[in-house]
C-alpha cells in the first residue's frame, strides 16, 4: 500500500463529508430559489455541524445510544473504503481493489442498522415508529436496487465494481445508455435511499417529529449529520461508478455526482410525502417491473 493511498484513506472521509454536506447545502439553496427566496449560504450545513460539535451538553440514554452514531459513521467510512472513487491516471481505490458489489450492498446497511439500534435505545416511540418505517421502506427499495445490480453483474459477468467501470470506457458504453432498465430501477431505489421528499417518511417531522434522531442532540447529532453528508457522497460515487462510467478526476467526479444528486432533489421539491405502505409498494410496481424487463433482456 503506497503512502499516497494511506493519505487518501485518511483524507477521503473528510473530503467526502465536506462534498456531501456542500451538496446538501446547495440543495437547500436550490430549494430556496424554487420557493421564491434566497436561501442560506451553501456552506450552511458545515456551520450547523460546527455548532453541533460545539454544543456544551449532550444527553445519552445508554451504551447503544452512544455507539449508534459512531457505528453508523463507521459503516459509512468502511463503505467508502471499498468504493472505487477515482479511476483515472491517479486512481483512488483505497481498499476497493476487490470492489465487490455484494459486499458494498451489505456493508451499506451496517450504518443504517447501527443508527436504528441507537435510535431504538432512546426509548422514544417516535424513534421506534421511524425505524419501523425506515426498515419497511428499505425492504421496498432494495428490491429494484438488487434487480439493477443483478442486471449489471450478469451483463458484465463480474461483481467487481472496477470491472464494471472498465467496461464503460466511452460515453456510449455508460450503463445509463447500455442498460437503461437497470438505471431506471436503480434510480428509483436511489430516491428511496436518499430519503428526499416523497420518501422522507423516516424523518417526517409533521408526523413523528423527525423520527429516529428525535432524541439525539449536540455532538451525537453532529456525528449523524456528518454521516448524512458522507453517506450521500458514498452513494453518489457508487452510482457514478455503476452507471456513469466512474470518474477520472475530481472535477468529473463532482460534475457527475452533482448531476445525479439533482434528480432526487428536483423530485423532492414539488412532491409531498408518501404514506409508509404506499412508499414500499411504489417500489414494487413500476421500478420492479422495469427491472424485470431488464432482467429478461439480459438473459436473452
Amino acid at each position, binding site marked *: 500500500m503506497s503512502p499516497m493511498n494511506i493519505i487518501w484513506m485518511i483524507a477521503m472521509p473528510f473530503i467526502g463529508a465536506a462534498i456531501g454536506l456542500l451538496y446538501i447545502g446547495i440543495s437547500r439553496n436550490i*430549494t430556496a430559489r*424554487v*420557493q*421564491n*427566496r434566497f436561501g442560506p449560504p451553501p456552506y450552511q450545513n458545515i456551520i450547523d455541524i460546527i455548532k453541533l460539535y460545539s454544543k456544551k451538553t449532550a444527553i445519552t440514554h445508554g451504551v447503544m445510544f452512544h455507539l449508534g452514531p459512531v457505528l453508523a459513521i463507521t459503516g459509512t467510512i468502511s463503505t467508502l473504503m471499498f468504493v472505487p472513487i477515482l479511476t483515472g491516471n491517479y486512481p483512488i481505490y483505497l481498499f476497493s481493489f476487490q470492489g465487490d458489489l455484494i459486499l458494498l450492498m451489505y456493508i451499506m446497511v451496517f450504518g443504517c442498522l447501527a443508527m436504528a439500534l441507537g435510535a431504538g435505545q432512546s426509548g422514544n*416511540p*417516535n424513534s421506534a*415508529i421511524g425505524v*419501523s418505517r425506515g426498515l419497511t421502506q428499505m425492504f421496498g427499495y432494495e428490491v429494484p436496487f438488487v434487480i439493477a445490480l443483478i442486471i449489471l453483474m450478469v451483463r458484465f459477468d463480474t461483481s467487481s465494481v472496477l470491472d464494471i467501470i472498465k467496461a464503460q470506457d466511452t460515453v456510449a458504453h455508460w450503463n445509463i445508455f447500455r442498460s437503461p432498465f437497470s438505471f431506471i430501477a436503480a434510480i428509483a431505489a436511489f430516491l428511496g435511499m436518499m430519503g428526499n*421528499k*416523497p420518501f*422522507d*417518511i423516516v424523518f*417526517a*417531522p*409533521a*408526523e*413523528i*417529529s423527525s423520527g429516529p434522531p428525535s432524541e439525539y442532540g449536540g455532538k451525537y447529532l453532529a456525528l449523524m449529520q456528518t454521516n448524512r453528508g458522507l453517506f450521500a457522497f458514498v452513494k453518489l460515487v457508487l452510482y457514478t461508478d455503476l452507471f456513469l462510467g466512474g470518474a477520472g478526476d475530481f472535477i468529473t467526479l463532482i460534475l457527475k455526482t452533482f448531476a445525479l444528486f439533482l434528480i432526487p432533489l428536483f423530485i423532492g*421539491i*414539488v*412532491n*409531498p*410525502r*408518501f*404514506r*409508509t405502505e*404506499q412508499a414500499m409498494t411504489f417500489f414494487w410496481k413500476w421500478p420492479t417491473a422495469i427491472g424485470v424487463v431488464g432482467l429478461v433482456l439480459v438473459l436473452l
Partner: protein
Amino acid sequence: MAALLTKEKETTLYLGPQHPGITGNMMVELKLTGDTIQRAKTHVGYLHRAFEKLMEERLWMQCFPIVCRICVPEPDPNEENLARAIEEIEGREVPERAQYIRVLMLELARITAYLMWMGGQSGSMGLYTMPQWSIGDRDYILDLFEELTGGRVYHMYIWAGGVRRDLPVGFKDRVRKVMDYIESRLVDYDRLLFENAIFLKRAQGIGIIDKEKALEWGVVGPPLRGCGIAHDVRKDEPYEVYDQLDFELITHEGNDVYSRAMVRRKEIEQSIHIIRQVLDKMPSGPIHNPGPNPLKWKVPAGDAYVRTESARGEFGYYVVSDGSLKPRRVHVRGPAYVHGIALLEHLLQGANVADVSFIMNSLGTCPPEIER
C-alpha cells in the same frame, strides 16, 4: 390532565403541544397499536387567556382590541361579530359603504386564512414549497391590511357602527391588482398541490365524515360543504350586504380530506369574485354611525347572537348586556370548538399516525378559538 385510561399495552404517543405537525398549541393523545390509532383524545387549554372574563372587566370599546386576538389566522370575523352584536342590541344602523368595506375585509381575511391553511395542509405531508409560496403570497394581502388599518395581523378596524377608516386613495386598484395576482397564482397552486398525484393518493378516502351525521355532529364550514351539504351563513342568514352580491356556494362530494381541500380551493375563486363585485358596487357615503362617548357608552340591556361565516365555518358571538358600561357576558363559538375536539377524536379512531396532522389541518382546527 385527565389522561385516557391506559389499556395494558397500547403505546401512547403525544402529538403536541410542542410538535411541528400540530396546528397551534394543543395536544392529541394517541393510543396506538402498530401505527393505527385506537383511541385519540384532544387536550386543549394551553392557550386559555380568559378573554370572556377579561371582557367582563373592560368597557365596551375596549373589547374590540381583545376579540380580534381570539382567532389568530383570521381575526376579522371576531370584530365583525362583536360589532354586529352590539349594533343589534342597540339597534344602530350601519352606513352602506361601511357594510361594503366590512365585506371586503372579511373576504380578504378569508383568502389569507385559506392561503395559510394551504401551507399547513401541505406542510403536514411534507410539501414545504407550498407554504413558502402561499404564505409569501398572503403577505400581499397583509400589506393591504396594513395600509388600510395599520396592522398586519390584528386590525381592530371594524367597530360598532361602521369601520374605523375610509379606504385610502388608490386602494381599490391595489386590491384589484393583488386579486389578479392571486388568481394567476392559483394555477401554480393547482399544479403543485391540488393536482399532485401523491396528494390525491393520500387525501382521498382519509378522514371521512359520515354524511348523515354531519349536521348532527355540528360540522360547519368547508368540512360540511365537503360532504356535499350546501350550507353557508352567508346564504342561510345573509349579513351585511352578502344578499346583494352574487357568489356561488361551493360543495364537493366525497366527505374526505380531498373534498374539503377542493371546497377551500374553489372558495378562494369565489372570494376573489366577491371582492371584485364589492369594489365595483361600493357606494360613497359615510363609513361610521358614531355612538356615544366610549367612556360613557352604555349598551342597553339585552342579548344577541350573531354569526359570521369564517374560513373554518360558522363563527358565533353571544353577547349579553345588562345596561352597564361593561358587557355582562360575551360567549364565543368558534368552529374549531366542535371540529377540534369531538369530531377530531372521532375521525382519528382507526386512522394512521401519518394522517393525524393531515386530518387536523383539513378540519382547520384552531386552538385559540377553542379555549379563548
